[in-house]
């Protein structure tokens, strides 16, 4: 009870350490979603609209990778970025950039697989009409992305939720350096093991509140747009 009170005081009092951590977490996850979306949405659309040998294998692998263990992604990115790794010369291991890369890789399959499914379903529905209207390949992709935008937004949020909540990947490639690469989840893990429960609890509350707020916003957008466009 006392710890819950202390946690609340940290939040309500605007504790600077706590808010710096929250800010860093959000920034990293947002960049990760942006990068994963830039690759994942077109990739999903491409997979939905094309047929090539091995397409089913790609889809199965993509669906399976939606559940990639974060620590394994962290390890792989660690090996890539470590001094002796192929990308070691850039010296970005244990920086926020490395954390963005790891999270983007983690959620890319989620965004690509969900958008592939969404776009393929819509394409099945629209195919005859768009063909009859003589819509070319680029126009098809644009139309499908636009008309599926609400479901795609949900895919992006699923990716964001996963990125913001994971701890394994950012722990390994970020190193949990105080004031530099320490996120909400890594701080919670660390502070809990140190016995500093108020900060851990406070961050946990903030994390849950953020996830709730984002989903509430998405839901509002969805309801509003459905009223607008059906």
């Amino acid at each position, binding site marked *: 009870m006392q710890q819950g009170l202390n946690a609340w005081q940290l939040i309500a009092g605007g504790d600077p350490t706590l808010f710096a951590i929250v800010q860093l977490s959000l920034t990293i996850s947002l960049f990760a979603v942006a990068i994963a979306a830039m690759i994942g949405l077109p990739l999903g659309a491409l997979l939905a609209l094309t047929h090539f040998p091995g397409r089913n294998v790609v889809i199965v692998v993509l669906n399976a990778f939606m559940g990639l263990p974060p620590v394994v992604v962290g390890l792989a990115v660690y090996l890539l970025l470590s001094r002796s790794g192929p990308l070691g010369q850039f010296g970005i291991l244990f920086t926020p950039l490395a954390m963005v890369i790891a999270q983007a890789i983690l959620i890319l399959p989620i965004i690509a697989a969900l958008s592939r499914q969404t776009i393929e379903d819509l394409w099945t529905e629209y195919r*005859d*009409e768009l*063909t*009859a209207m003589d819509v070319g390949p680029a126009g098809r992709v644009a139309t499908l992305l636009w008309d599926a935008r609400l479901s795609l937004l949900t895919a992006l949020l699923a990716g964001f939720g996963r990125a913001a909540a994971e701890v394994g990947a950012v722990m390994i490639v970020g190193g949990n350096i105080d004031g530099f690469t320490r996120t909400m989840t890594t701080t919670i893990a660390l502070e809990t093991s140190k016995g500093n429960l108020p900060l851990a609890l406070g961050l946990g509350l903030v994390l849950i509140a953020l996830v709730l707020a984002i989903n509430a916003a998405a839901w509002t957008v969805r309801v509003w747009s459905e009223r*607008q466009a*059906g």
Partner: protein
Amino acid sequence: MRAPVNDLPVRFERVSLRAGGMTILDRIDAVIEPGAPTLIVGPNGAGKSSFLRLCMGLSTPTDGRITWGGRTDAKPARRAFVFQRPVMLRRTAGGNIAYSLKQAGVPREQRAERVARLLEQVGLSDLGERPARRLSGGEQQRLALARALAREPDLLLLDEPTASLDPAATRSVEEIVRAAASSGIKVVMASHDLGQVRRLAGKVMFLVRGALREHVAADAFLNNPSTPEAEAFVRGDLVV
């Protein structure tokens, strides 16, 4: 912009369509020329929809050849199709028409005015801002017609557009079709409703099990059919 070509006449030269060992259409020879509406009649499964899809270029024949105004390229530049169950884009009613106008190459600044005119033409002026998927079945069918007319087609293909509509909605769809036909658009429409043939048809194509049994003026078909199947069909007997 509109291509300076015409898609008419549509010529079928010994066109067959087969799928999975089944013959859907069997060696069809036919010419569709400008004029009063052609109604394609026949029992379910006779190949009416497949014929229309071939006319549109949505599917390709297994054998034979189709030409549009003498050309073999199937690009539906001057054709439009209204499906039996049209799919509304996830946009407003007006947005659906605007989309079709855009695809037909109508410049952006002309679209709003054309949308308003087309909505009026199909009696949906008050519903332009309504999400298309919220419209009733009859309204959706009329919107699909407006979307098709937005393409300013030479050839308008309709696949049983009134099959699931009540008489009032059927009448308004038929009025739009009649107006389109009298404005010079060639209408080809599948139907299994003999009353509709009487009301709309200039010519009739009668299909049975993938074969074109008659292709004659509507009067001739209704008053003195030349095949036993057509006679039975006109009499109201069940033709299978």
